[in-house]
């Protein structure tokens, strides 16, 4: 257990050295936040109460979303891109003969990264947004706790998907095509381009059932207190996808380990 903790701590420190990159990332998130606020203000003024959100819900959604893009890894976070690269180049062999589980090793790296980015890139845009607009915040300690759990679950679901995508490289040699396809799905179904509550009819129902909905939309709805079936069902939905994805991840790891041939030299 200690070794995984140590990896997470070092991953946190590693990301904390990229100060200017973090700052310019947070700046970009803030600029996009203002753009989306302009768009959503128009949208929600034209049809008030759209998707069960009021105007301040919609604006809060924007700032939470911009803050969470990087920590949750909607665009595919560094760690998993790195793992994909290591599978492609064969360096993954080094990871495999370490006396640790491949999946938990990378999960620890991802957890350290996510924690750092949550503190910096999550906090900064939300702070700016809260200064300019009237945003909603959780009102009780229980709700804050639920938000923390939902965020952790969201990162785990996202990791589960990205891990599978990275390991696909064991079978299709160049996983980058699949990586970008995974990015499309994640952009579309996580609520990044538009809150999923606004998706009409069956598209909305499909979108809200995908694992990507569990990464971004569900945690934000927990924050807003707007989960369609209540907070508990939102968290259970996330937990369901965590179990499915981690079992799949475990299976794929075993298959990949059996397949890999390490040529010594």
């Amino acid at each position, binding site marked *: 257990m200690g070794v995984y903790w140590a990896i997470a701590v070092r991953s946190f420190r590693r990301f904390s050295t*990229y*100060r*200017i*990159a973090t700052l*310019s*990332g947070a*700046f*970009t998130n803030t*600029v*996009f936040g203002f*753009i989306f606020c*302009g*768009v959503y*203000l*128009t*949208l929600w003024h*034209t*049809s008030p109460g*759209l998707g069960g959100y009021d105007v301040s819900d919609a604006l809060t959604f924007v700032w939470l979303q911009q803050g969470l893009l990087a920590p949750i890894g909607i665009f595919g976070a560094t760690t998993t891109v790195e793992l994909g690269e290591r599978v492609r180049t064969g360096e993954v062999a080094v990871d495999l003969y370490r006396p640790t589980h491949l999946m938990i090793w990378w999960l620890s790296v991802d957890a350290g990264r996510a924690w750092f980015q949550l503190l910096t890139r999550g906090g900064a845009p939300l702070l700016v947004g809260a200064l300019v607009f009237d945003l909603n915040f959780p009102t009780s300690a229980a709700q804050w706790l639920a938000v923390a759990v939902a965020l952790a679950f969201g990162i785990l679901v996202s990791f589960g998907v990205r891990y599978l995508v990275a390991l696909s490289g064991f079978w*299709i*040699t*160049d996983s*980058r*095509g*699949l990586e*970008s*396809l995974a*990015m*499309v799905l994640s*952009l*579309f179904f996580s609520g990044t*381009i*538009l809150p999923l509550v*606004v*998706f*009409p009819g069956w*598209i909305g129902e499909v979108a809200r059932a995908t694992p990507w909905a569990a990464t971004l939309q569900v945690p934000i709805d927990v924050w807003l207190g707007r989960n369609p079936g209540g907070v508990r069902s939102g968290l259970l939905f996330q937990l369901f996808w965590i179990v499915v994805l981690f079992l799949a991840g475990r299976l794929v790891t075993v298959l990949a380990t059996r397949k890999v041939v390490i040529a010594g030299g």
Partner: protein
Amino acid sequence: MMWVRSSLAYPASFLLMLVSQALITGTDFIAVLLMFSHLKSFGGFSLAEMALLYGTASMTLGLADLATGSVERIGQRIRGGELDVWLIRPVPAFLQAVTDNFALRRLGRPLQALLVMAIALGNLPINWTVPKVLLLAISLISGSIIFAAIFVLGAAFQFISIDSAELANSFTYGGQQLTQYPLSIFGKNIVRAVTFVVPLAFVNYYPVLYLLDKPAPLGLPAWIGLLAPVVAVVMIALAALAWRGGLRRYRSTGS
């Protein structure tokens, strides 16, 4: 050329990347479509007019990204020391920077933009006159140039601050995100800022207003869209100055 061949080495993966590139960049338009399932007009623009705005914004950014997007990797090249190698080759460093890791998959964005634009133009009752046709063609070129200049300005800034690659994103990708909507919805201050400070309004907004015979905001004359090429020339000059300044300021990290 080498980069083009290397990306075509795995045709299936390349095709998948091209398609997903078109899809990734197209999701913004799908968002607009989804919005219009709830409303009839957005900031005074109909769906077809929004599609024209989106198509021109995405097309110009796509072309700029294809031509100069690689330049944003300059920070990595400075840190890795490759820039020193570029400087002693008998080809301008700028050319090497824009062709570095030239990514053909970036064709995905202009391709989907072209499709959206074609559908938009087919559904709009525009009174086509010679100046309007010329304006559309020229504004696509000048808009691409404005975005390209912003890419280069962002790269030049990396000579000062090496890790700031993402900063330029707020003006390039953010600029596309902004210009795909009628700018007037963002309020007068934003319109002023993108007219006089970072001239993103000239990329497509003012030219499209002229095409659609809509009045310009802030009491500006309707023909302001015709100034787009002038703005593009000014932006090139600024970008060239900044790039040269950056190169002159560059001191190798040594090893």
